[in-house]
């Protein structure tokens, strides 16, 4: 009996040791701290993630935050319609620009995960996945591990993804997008810009459709 307890104790010690080693291994997490100013400057001309025909007559710009509940609602209620009825039909192109709010604990890693997915041509898939699963990771610790799970699920090259997130490859670009939004008058999410109209309280499909039609009509004149 004594031997059994000694063996069980040894197993417990070994198990704790394995867990401690696993916890000390950490993972590829987004670096914090100051962002290289040059990187931000270089990214200022970056247009955002463009969906649809780049030559489409009207551009719909969306500034959004992946951890913003309102953005998720807008994604469900309006953006799907915009994609199917305006973008897919060539009437407009939809440009997504990052506006990661610092008040959300997982916004920065979420946007960075999407940027790293974009490197592998999977931005839209990661974008949709992040909004789809937002209730599961919003405000929770461990979100970066979940994003990595999504990357795996989407079939991304994980080694490349880890390198991208680990070095914070797109932090400058995200910051540039955020500052670009501020310069345009964006102060909340979601914000839509169509032509010279800026809507900060969300939009309806009908409103966007009317704007697209009017801008297209002006362009034809």
């Amino acid at each position: 009996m004594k031997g059994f307890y000694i063996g069980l104790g040894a197993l417990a010690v070994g198990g704790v040791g394995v867990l401690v080693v696993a916890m000390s291994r950490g993972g590829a997490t987004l670096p914090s701290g100051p962002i290289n100013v040059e990187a931000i400057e270089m990214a200022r001309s970056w247009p955002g993630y463009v969906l649809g025909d780049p030559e489409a007559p009207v551009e719909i710009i969306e500034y959004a935050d992946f951890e913003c509940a309102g953005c998720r609602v807008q994604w469900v209620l309006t953006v799907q319609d915009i994609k199917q009825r305006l973008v897919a039909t060539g009437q407009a192109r939809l440009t997504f620009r990052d506006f990661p709010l610092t008040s959300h604990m997982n916004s920065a890693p979420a946007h960075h995960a999407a940027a790293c997915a974009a490197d592998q041509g999977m931005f839209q898939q990661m974008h949709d996945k992040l909004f789809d699963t937002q209730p599961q990771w919003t405000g929770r610790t461990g979100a970066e591990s979940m994003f990595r799970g999504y990357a795996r699920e989407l079939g991304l090259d994980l080694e490349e993804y880890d390198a991208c997130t680990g070095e914070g490859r797109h932090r400058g670009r995200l910051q540039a997008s955020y500052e670009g939004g501020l310069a345009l008058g964006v102060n909340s999410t979601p914000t839509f810009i169509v032509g010279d109209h800026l809507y900060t309280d969300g939009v309806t499909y009908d409103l966007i459709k009317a704007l697209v039609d009017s801008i297209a009509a002006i362009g034809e004149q």
Partner: protein
Amino acid sequence: MKHRMVIATLSLVGLFVALYLSLWKLGLVGSMVCGLGSCEVVQTSRYAYLFGIPVAFYGVVGYLAMLGVSLVGLQPKFVATLGPTKLLVGLGGSGTAFCLYLTYIEAFVLDAWCRWCIVIAILTVSILATAVVGLRERPSEN
């Protein structure tokens, strides 16, 4: 009561596996060691939660319970009674049913396999089988 020793050992192993998955869920462990499996697909799916609580946490509680019951059952006061073994059959049976449900989800809903979940399922079924065998042991044998 050798079967209780076996169950205690299996429960301890299962406890550490469940703890590992729980720590990963809490973000305290980096990339999950999974080999060729799809652990992250399974662990980040909506089925990885039950009533808003990660299923790995239920595993921790379940294995702790089975470890506790088996160790109590090894104490002189309880060695000659079948009560702890019956309780282990109940706990092992509940755990096995839960594992069957999760395995079904992996196979037919997610089409993805988590190596650690399979380990947990094997451990739980083994605990149930050992407990059932233990019911046939006569207490005086030990």
